[in-house]
């Protein structure tokens, strides 16, 4: 997942759709994010590359909409509804997720286990699906 900013990167990504939960006046997604280009990347416990300033999922509220959508702790968020999240300040990332006008967010996330899963499945071409 490490990449050089400005150069194209190749990752295995998963699309996750989360329907916001309305609690009174708020729309919550049920997870916490960390990271951002204005944050210290060395303190990110989830990133492989400690210079990665991307947005990571740091906590999932149990029973929340994010957990129901199979978002996992440690996921790196690449896009939210088409907006890029690999090169944004922390607050901008938070704002993109908490837009009150949107009921659904579509995230593009990646995690190490996805790559491993792809490699694993590619190694067994004759397996019945």
């Amino acid at each position: 997942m490490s990449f050089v900013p400005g150069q194209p990167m190749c990752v295995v990504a998963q699309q996750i759709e989360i329907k916001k939960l309305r609690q009174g006046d708020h729309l919550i997604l049920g997870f916490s994010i960390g990271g951002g280009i204005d944050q210290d990347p060395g303190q990110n416990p989830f990133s492989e590359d400690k210079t990665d300033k991307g947005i990571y999922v740091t906590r999932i509220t149990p029973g929340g909409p994010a957990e129901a959508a199979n978002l996992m702790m440690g996921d790196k968020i690449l896009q939210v509804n088409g907006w890029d999240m690999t090169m944004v300040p922390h607050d901008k990332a938070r704002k993109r997720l908490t837009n009150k006008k949107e009921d659904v967010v579509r995230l593009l996330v990646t995690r190490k286990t996805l790559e491993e899963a792809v490699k694993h499945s590619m190694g067994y071409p004759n397996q019945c699906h």
Partner: protein
Amino acid sequence: MDNSACRRDSDIQKKIDHEIRMRDGACKLLAACSQRDQALEAAKSLQTCSTRIMAYMSELQRMKEAQVMQKVTRRSSDAGPMDDRLPCKGKVAISDLRIPLMWKDTEYFKNKGELHRCAVFCLLQLGGEIFDTDMVIVDRTLTDICFDNAIVFTDASPGFELRVELYSCCSEDDYSAGSTPRKLASKLSSSLGRSSGKKLRASMEPGACSPVSNGGASPLLLPVPSVPGPKYHLLAHTTLSLSHVQDSFRTHDLTISGNEECSYWLPLYGSVCCRLAAQPLCMTQQMMSGCLKVKQCGADPQSWTKVHAALKGSSLFCYHRQEDVEANVEPAFTIAINKETRIRASEKDPQSKVQNICVSNQYGGEEVTHTLTTDSREDTHRWMEAFWQHFYDMSQWKQCCDDLMKIELPSPRKPAPATPKQGSLYHEMVIESSDDLSSTVSDILARRLQELELRSQLGTSPTWMSLFEEDNPKSAGRPSPCTSRLSGRSPRTPHRFPRSPVSPHRCPQLGLLSSDVSLTSDSDSQCSTSPCSHHHNWPEPSNFSLSSSSPSRLRPRTLSLDAKLSTLRGRGYGGGGGTFQCPCQPPPSSLLVPIPISSCSPRSQRSTQTTLSCSSSTSSNSSSNSEGSHSPESSEGLPFSRPSPARRSLRNLRARLDPRNWLQSQV
């Protein structure tokens, strides 16, 4: 045939009449309104109505022509059976339209010159349906034009063309062009500055960029009313079709009309980003259903299974009984019908006179064949026809049939809560920030508290409350370290047990703590609960909140806005960034953990180590505690005197901007 045509005619005629009435209304409104934004909205509806009228009239024209053609062909030799297969229709949805702008950096960053504002909106046309988005005012502080509307077109064919048009109108001083005589106008434009003069001239130009061109050949054209007021001009357009449909966001090119000289010009980057999804009917609806007998190839020839089958999407669902289909019961088995499936009619079964249908699929490396048969020739024929139609639909709708794309119906949006217009920055800081999210969390916590209360009987306090009890030997050892500190702070005795209803002490210090955890919290009820708790318990907002629950039970109070605001600000953690320290469900067991009071004392400097040790004593299930240091928001609000709200919010800001912290936000 004629009846349906007449009906369609009258339908369209009714629609045209409706739109003409709407247009007249919009014209009248435009003439009557004085405020600029009202005028813009009215002009937008005028534009939409005009476009719809044009579309309906051209459709009417086409229908009339088709009728005439049909009469002609009927008279001549038979055109032959309509053997052409028509693909099924579908729903097409476009949402999250975003058009990036490309301001010159001098304009954007330096914010020089007057703010050139334009009102823009999009018209989306597919077939006979025309929708408009909400109007957005754009100036050089925006980097993209975003339209939040999601627009769903029903009844689209796979060869659809979705035309997206961006209209804009200069939204500046009211150049009501109609009234100024030409000579005066030219004199004015030469004496005014270059840019404003250009705009004036452009707005007075009759209709070089007129949206409603009378180029159509339709003889039924009604006169286009020329109305004074803002007029929208076409700025850019593009046409999307099936090849652009995808279940994610894509960027498409825009064709820009107009140039820099026009008053309605905006520096577009040249592309539009949106999510275009399509749901063909063959994926969402049952195309065919009926009774079948299924046999798996390779199985013993007499083992026919009688099922009720439904063809939908990319599978043939087989249920044991017909009722199961409606009952949403899992099907007995499913046969895939997708692009790789091969279906053929087999040779006649010697026993029955009916042909069988063989369905072959490749699962992994193996080929699996199911044989279907029905009771009669007509049924077999109908099933074959349904399969062929299904294959045809899938070939026409291409990538839309791989997986069902989600289309959300635009929900009726609640009106945005009106933010109280208050002058001071103080209030703005509170409302704007995501402090509100913590009150959501506080709701969750409060519910837990209520659960806890219910579990322990009413009237008796939870076991940990005994910690604060005077007579309890368990607590003997605890409060002593804090007494020395207490003496300096509060006049009250540290061991008052808060069984009785709240005494009306005002304890501003307690307002600093996580007082919003309890729903009915306000300063009064909190201070009386655990008078000594706040001194050594401030790192444990959960503890505090739990203890505040009992008086809240005894004396429920509705929260005034002021009190709520003050409690929000008084929180011991979580500044403007919504940084979240307190876990959602603090287990009560953690409260009994002895608090390292010594580590709490050096509160003056903002040391992250201190924060970590203190907050780790609260509860262990917060992942934020296990990681590195966090924004020492908790240290901010915890001085033992209540700082002014402005200073506190500044401190929160500084905490957020401190690069030593790794912020986390709850969303």
